[in-house]
């Protein structure tokens, strides 16, 4: 029993040619652009949060390769089950930025227009793993040729639902790809205190399927391994767990102060391994990228982000939706309670205008 390690593109932008996936310019540029867009989306969210225009927000700074590499390995018809830090996947999967902002500004109405096969954010850690296994299982039962991809952190591997989900996937050989974003921390708890297991990938052995550990800051490795795992899944080969070894460069969320539990030097070390920087060097070496294209792209993305924020901030949540989406049909007591609230609101309005 053992687990492998894979990396293709190192921190200096050097590539292992024997493993290099054959991707055309357009695709590589799309990887790069989406990673930068994710970072700028994130950055804007942090600023909005500091100005009180958003909820608590968990940035994915430093984890863009894991998100984008895996997302582009999926097909639109594959299921996607996020935790709460999968902004890059959501963006790559085509969920409009404005909807992401509406959600993090505090409204479920963001999901009114969720594109198919994308599940909403799951806040309780690891609970979404079971849904992903169930969706994959359903696909298998229905003989659909699709897979299901679920994301979770290093911390999530300690929860019972992780275990139960992995075990069901192993027993029923569901077409599920488990992507563990091992960003080295669960809030303040370092990975070594989360479990005494040497790697997280080896946990898959307890469920009778393959686990692999890869450089999560290497978008080419993430893409290649996810692609292989998805093909295996779709062709009846069962599940795979991919441990993406990466780092959360920012605080856990905007409420967190990471200086309490980790050293600046550690963060500096990881800065050198930045996933975006190494992809840019790779593109430049291939003659696909230069500063002027970079400048043009940054300007374009800046506008895109600003436009999305404006759209999001102009959205007015609908009070009735609080009652409308509890059941398919509103039962009597909810009708009464909605009337009660509307009575209160219109009375107040009357008071205010009167």
């Amino acid at each position, binding site marked *: 029993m053992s687990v492998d390690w894979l990396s293709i593109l190192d921190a200096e932008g050097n590539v292992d040619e024997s493993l290099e996936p054959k991707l055309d310019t357009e695709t590589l540029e799309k990887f790069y652009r989406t990673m930068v867009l994710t970072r700028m989306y994130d950055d804007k969210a942090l600023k909005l949060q500091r100005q009180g225009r958003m909820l608590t927000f968990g940035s994915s700074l430093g984890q863009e390769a894991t998100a984008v590499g895996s997302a582009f390995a999926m097909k639109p018809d594959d299921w996607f089950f996020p935790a709460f830090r999968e902004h890059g996947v959501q963006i790559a999967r085509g969920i409009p930025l404005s909807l992401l902002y509406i959600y993090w500004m505090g409204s479920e109405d963001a999901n009114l227009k*969720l594109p198919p096969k994308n599940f909403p954010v799951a806040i309780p850690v690891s609970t979404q793993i*079971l*849904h992903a296994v169930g969706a994959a299982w359903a696909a298998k039962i229905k003989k659909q040729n699709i897979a299901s991809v679920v994301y979770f952190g290093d911390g999530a591997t300690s929860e019972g639902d992780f275990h139960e989900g992995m075990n069901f996937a192993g027993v029923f050989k569901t077409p599920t790809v488990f992507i563990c974003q091992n960003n080295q921390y669960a809030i303040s708890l370092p990975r070594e205190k989360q479990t005494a297991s040497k790697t997280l990938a080896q946990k898959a052995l307890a469920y009778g399927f393959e686990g692999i550990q890869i450089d999560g800051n290497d978008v080419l490795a993430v893409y290649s391994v996810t692609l292989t795992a998805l093909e295996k899944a779709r062709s009846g080969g069962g599940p795979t767990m991919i441990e993406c070894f990466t780092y959360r460069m920012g605080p856990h969320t905007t409420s967190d102060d990471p200086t309490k539990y980790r050293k600046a030097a550690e963060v500096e070390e990881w800065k050198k391994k930045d996933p975006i920087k190494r992809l840019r060097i790779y593109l430049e070496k291939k003659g696909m990228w230069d500063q002027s294209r970079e400048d043009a792209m940054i300007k374009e993305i800046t506008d895109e982000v600003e436009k999305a924020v404006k759209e999001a901030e102009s959205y007015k949540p609908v009070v009735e939706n609080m009652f409308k989406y509890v059941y398919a049909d509103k039962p009597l007591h909810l009708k009464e309670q909605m009337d009660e609230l509307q009575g209160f609101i219109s009375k107040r309005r009357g008071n205010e205008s009167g």
Partner: protein
Amino acid sequence: MSLAKLNMVQAINLALFEEMEKDPTVLVMGEDVGVDGGVFRVTEGLLSKFGSDRVIDTPLAESGIVGTAIGMAVSGLKPVAEIQFEGFSYMTIDQLAAHASRIRYRSRGTYHCPLVVRAPYGGGVKALEHHSEAVATFYIHIPGLKVVIPSTPYDAKGLLISSIRDPDPVMFFEPKKLYRAFKEEVPEGEYTVPLGVGKKITEGEDLTLIAWGAMVRVCQEAMEQVKDLNVELIDLRTLSPLDDKVIIDSVKKTGRVVIVHEEPRTLGFGAEIIARINEKALLSLEAPVKRVTGFDVPMPLPKLEDYYLPNAAKVADAIKEVAAF
């Protein structure tokens, strides 16, 4: 439509059988539901008819069963998940409260969760610890779930069919005390009993007696002991969402109420019924509503369970007390 005399186990089995035959998206999953046919034989015969993709023996993991069933439900299947005994349903509360009940809400209708969770519940069968509890409160209090408890074979079949067809998650608790207690005529083929509608079992002017599940039988026995009174017996059948109307109309007529349930008294469903009566018919009350319930102690092992559970004598006493108030 042919009729057969069936007990509740058979009626539930028939409902599953017919719905699975009619709708290829319906499937059954849980511990020992396949090869073994379920520890109460409720799913017997389904595996050989529908195969192991639709009658699934799962590993021993309740959160896993419900959580994966949620994933199936959002992908267009209609899983009927069995939790082997009510006392192991606590392990499913997180998946139900955090997910099944909120998927429609959180996704604003993009997804919904047509899941049924079946579990036997309740005492009176001299079972092991955690095999005799009544646990409805936990699920009634979760907005977005429905909670259904049948008291007869006929209703069991009709309510289960409605539950399977319901687009939202339904907890379907089966009074194991009544699984084989009696038979009644149950039609073969399609019929439904609607969710959210209580049933008046008897009409009466003197007192309203409210129960569900196994306690309906206990109430019927009790009524034998107070034949001089005209008791209106209501079987709620669906606890969530509650059919206030059948209760309120009755209370307005009788002014006197006894509620019977197995659950511990504090925050058992009787409390909510009293609150609704208070809100909608307080002025009709001629006596305090009386609760005959399990005590606020853990369900005891069988040697003491008869002391714990409501029985006909206790209910009869309560009826007399309230009538005489």
